[in-house]
């Protein structure tokens, strides 16, 4: 094993009641890679994210991040280790301003205590100022700084998707997990978003795991791709290999019809 292995998931699976939503998934990510996770609806992609990020504890197998076993860790602890995510169904803090959404994710960059905030000690002011400054930087990258005082729920849809990524980035991840970030966007917005993802990847030296329903889109930017179907990995490899894999074509055949 190389030392720059960031995620190593071995024989991971989860069961909800009688339903084995995901089984026997082996998945690894090297530092700096941009990897796609694709598969038809209900294949178990989001569930896999939920297991990696600590939202669900896997029923079987182990997941290690940066050499550390994630077993039993809560999502916030996983996040503090250097991983953050977006959600397929946007989960912004709707009644907070755009800026405050990012500040929440920036929570841990400042260290002032509750007492310091209540008594308004100097550390409160310096800490809050630092959070404000950094958060605005993140908003600028995504062109969201003009909306900073808007409530998140009032943003147009595409901007909400961007804010989710900005917020995830503010948590200072090494690994960013994006769950269908382009869902519901038109081709132009999707194109811009993909460029943006490529940009932040370079700028912040990120490793990215990207779920995308649309196979063609993933082919364009990912170096490697995992394909899930009915909870199991049916293929992995370069986009070229995936494109010509008969199992993948079969899994997607039923899909293309109703897409």
């Amino acid at each position, binding site marked *: 094993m190389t030392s720059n292995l960031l995620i190593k998931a071995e024989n991971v699976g989860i069961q*909800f*009641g009688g339903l084995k939503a995901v089984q026997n998934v082996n998945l690894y990510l090297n530092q700096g890679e941009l990897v796609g996770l694709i598969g038809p609806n209900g294949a178990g992609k*989001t569930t896999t994210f*939920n297991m990696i990020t600590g*939202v*669900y504890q896997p029923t079987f197998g182990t997941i290690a991040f940066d050499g550390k076993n994630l077993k039993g860790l809560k999502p916030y602890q996983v996040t503090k280790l250097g991983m953050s995510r977006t*959600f397929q169904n946007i989960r912004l803090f709707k009644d907070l301003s755009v800026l405050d959404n990012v500040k929440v994710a920036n929570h841990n960059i400042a260290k002032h205590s509750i007492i310091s905030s209540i008594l308004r000690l100097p550390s409160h002011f310096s800490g809050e100022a630092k959070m404000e400054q950094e958060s605005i930087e993140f908003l600028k990258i995504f062109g969201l700084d003009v909306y900073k005082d808007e409530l998140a729920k009032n943003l147009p849809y595409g901007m909400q998707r961007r804010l989710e990524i900005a917020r995830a980035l503010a948590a200072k991840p090494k690994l960013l997990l994006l769950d269908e970030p382009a869902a519901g966007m038109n081709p132009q917005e999707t194109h811009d978003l993909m460029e943006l993802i490529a940009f932040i990847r370079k700028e912040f030296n990120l490793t990215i795991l990207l779920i995308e329903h649309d196979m063609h889109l993933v082919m364009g930017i990912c170096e490697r791709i995992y394909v899930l179907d009915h909870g199991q990995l049916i293929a992995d490899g370069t986009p070229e290999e995936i494109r010509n894999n008969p199992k993948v074509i079969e899994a997607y055949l039923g899909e293309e019809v109703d897409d």
Partner: protein
Amino acid sequence: MEWIQQLVNGISLGSIYALIALGYTMVYGIIKLINFAHGDVFMLGAFIGFYAISRWEIGFFPALIISMVLCAIIGVIIERVAYKRLRSATRIAALITAIGVSLLIEYTVIFFRGASPEAYPEVLPKSSINILGVNISSISILILAVTIVLMILLQFIVHKTKIGKAMRAVSLDADAARLMGINVDNTISATFAIGSALAGAAGVIFGVYYTRIEPLMGVLPGLKAFIAAVFGGIGSIPGAMVGGLSLGLVETVVSALGFSLWRDAAAFVILILILILKPSGIFGKNTREKV
């Protein structure tokens, strides 16, 4: 043989809790609402029975039926007027509304007739039967019989009738049920009607057994019946029965041991233990929030 007497007391109290708990559990199962006003429907049932017996001078069974019918109607009105438009509201909004309805019923009753208690008339002969050397009042036995009959009836409705099947379908998945052609609104109303009728019956039985009723009498039994429902596994009909009987027995034991002032605390301690240790209750299923 003192303890047999206590056992009978516990079962009688537990039967009343179980009858109220059924309404809580059915309503929670179908619309995920803690219907705080349910204890007050129980109180209204007791008063309806009281007026029916003392003013119209009718017997126990006719009074029981009248009370059940009127409570069913009241339950449906509450659902249609207050809860129906809250189906898509937050859980907090729904719960606060239920608290509001509960207070409204209590204080409207007090407004019209005052807060003073009422002594229930004696409608049943005060005889007792000797079993194993213990005198057991015929009222206790009647209560148990009525409770058992009502529960069998409920099982029959839920498992053998069309409306029962609709109720089970809606509580599993309201949207799917609607797609299958089930009238969800009517099914929910029917659930309220049945639950409220059982609470009405419990009210009359309570009055006959404990002989003292008052406008705030529903508050504590209501809460405890809810605890019984949680204990049994909220949404589960057998759970409500077992939960109600268990709670009645526990309270009787606590009193019998000389801690009657702590009796009410026992129920809440049970509640907190069950919520912390196994929130799904003894008959409930664990579910996880989908993310």
